[in-house]
């Protein structure tokens, strides 16, 4: 086992041999974190869209009307920010860009046509997922920053109106992009069967791991069954 792939394994990732093989992919905490983030993001999208386009204003009814929507949206934003921060801290290392990611991405046609067998083996996340991860990270930083600038109830005094105008524009564009990325993310999860269970039940099948994240699976299999302790990691590294 080479040390350069060790980052790819998260705490709690575990292979359970059997028929079929199952692989623990997300711990309970990670799943809760994800779903808080997901819920926040959906609520933000709904409330944000209601204030973005008149045709979507009806969505504000979901939040108890315009005043509540205006009030709650930034607070959900705060929740999202911290929740996503949790995800970020969990997964940032697994999302660092690897050599094979370029190759994977170069074969985008095979990706979309589900010719996974033609793709290079990837670790815990493929390049597409990594792009989702990093673009979300950047967009959420942009959204929280611009969001605070336009959160007039508390922060009106700290910026000029011109800055607020830019913030609004950037916030809107970032939100559109974030929603689009989210659509990609959700679609991928729906399209690639067996994925959602990973985030619902925490585990995926061995076949799923083999097909989509073979490198990761190999790493997991290569590890001692109980999972590496800190000491063992150290030894392994040596």
């Amino acid at each position: 086992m080479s040390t350069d792939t060790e980052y790819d394994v998260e705490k709690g990732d575990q292979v359970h041999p059997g028929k079929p093989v199952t692989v623990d992919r997300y711990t309970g905490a990670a799943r809760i974190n994800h779903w808080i983030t997901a819920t926040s993001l959906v609520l933000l999208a709904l409330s944000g869209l209601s204030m973005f386009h008149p045709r979507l204003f009806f969505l504000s009814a979901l939040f108890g009307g315009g005043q509540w929507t205006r009030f709650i949206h930034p607070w959900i934003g705060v929740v999202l920010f911290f929740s996503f921060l949790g995800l970020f801290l969990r997964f940032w290392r697994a999302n660092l860009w690897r050599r094979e990611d370029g190759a994977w991405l170069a074969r985008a046609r095979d990706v979309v046509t589900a010719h996974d067998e033609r793709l290079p083996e990837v670790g815990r996340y493929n390049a597409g997922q990594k792009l989702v991860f990093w673009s979300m990270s950047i967009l959420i930083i942009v959204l929280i920053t611009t969001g605070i600038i336009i959160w007039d109830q508390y922060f009106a005094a700290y910026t000029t109106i011109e800055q607020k105008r830019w913030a609004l524009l950037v916030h809107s564009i970032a939100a559109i992009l974030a929603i689009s990325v989210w659509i990609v993310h959700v679609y991928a999860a729906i399209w690639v069967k067996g994925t959602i269970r990973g985030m619902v039940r925490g585990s995926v099948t061995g076949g799923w791991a083999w097909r989509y994240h073979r490198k990761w699976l190999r790493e997991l299999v290569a590890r001692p069954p109980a999972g590496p302790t800190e000491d063992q990691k150290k030894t392994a590294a040596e």
Partner: protein
Amino acid sequence: MFPPVPNPTTGPQTSKFGEKDLIRRSASTITPPAERQTEVAKLIDVSKCIGCKACQAACIEWNDTHPELESNTGIYENPHDLTPDMFTLMRFTEWENPETNNLEWLIRKDGCMHCEDPGCLKACPAPGAIVQYSNGIVDFVHENCIGCGYCIKGCPFNIPRISKVDHTAYKCTLCSDRIAVGQGPACAKACPTQAIVYGTKDEMKKHAEGRIADLKSRGFEKAGLYDPPGVGGTHVMYVLHHADQPEIYAGLPNNPRISPVVEAWKGVTKYAGLAVMGVAAVTGFLHYMVNGPNRVSEEDEEAAERLTGDRSS
């Protein structure tokens, strides 16, 4: 004397304009009335204004607002800025005219300009929170306001203010409630020097001409009317002694227009944004239709079993 608006009768009256006279309604599509009411306007003659603040007092009284009692911070503006409880404000500028070396104390009554193309309304996301009547009055409808503050960003004149109490936006209504029953704005009524007059927009423009001629006779060669075309003209206009440099009047914008940033946000972004999101969703849908789901095969499972089997053996 410009003929003042006569005192009203005290009997019940019907409103001279209402829902049916809307030409714009925020975040809504409406059919404007076939016939527009005569456009009204308020003319503020800065050269006649003595900065007495009677307009502010009248505004407070008529609208029954309760501005905070502030401190003196070394200036004459009180309150120090427009607030949700102070819809109009005298702004004082001590300007030394570089041409004459004379000090000029420029006093401008700040407040909503009632733009023909109102930026606040354009920016507003809440249906019906901002309306424009066919007579030109731009009014805020508080029960529809969500307090987002977008109007502040939309306004080229920095006028609306959000109340910390009811979280809705406030600004000068041009006394739409008074005008609706045949009166003029409270500030115009209180103005002792007729620096504020009210009438139809045409009358106001004509009245301004006379004022400008008078100012020119006093050496203010650049005297003129401030009715900025960038916002389609306004229903509150100024007579300025130095119309070529409105910015000396406490930052009155020279050629104001709705900020291009706001235009971009409320224009191309709004449509492009929906398109991008739509395309993403539709692409996914079509992809699924064409390619079907990406499933794990038996061979994959077996491969995984083999791999784990290797290890467990």
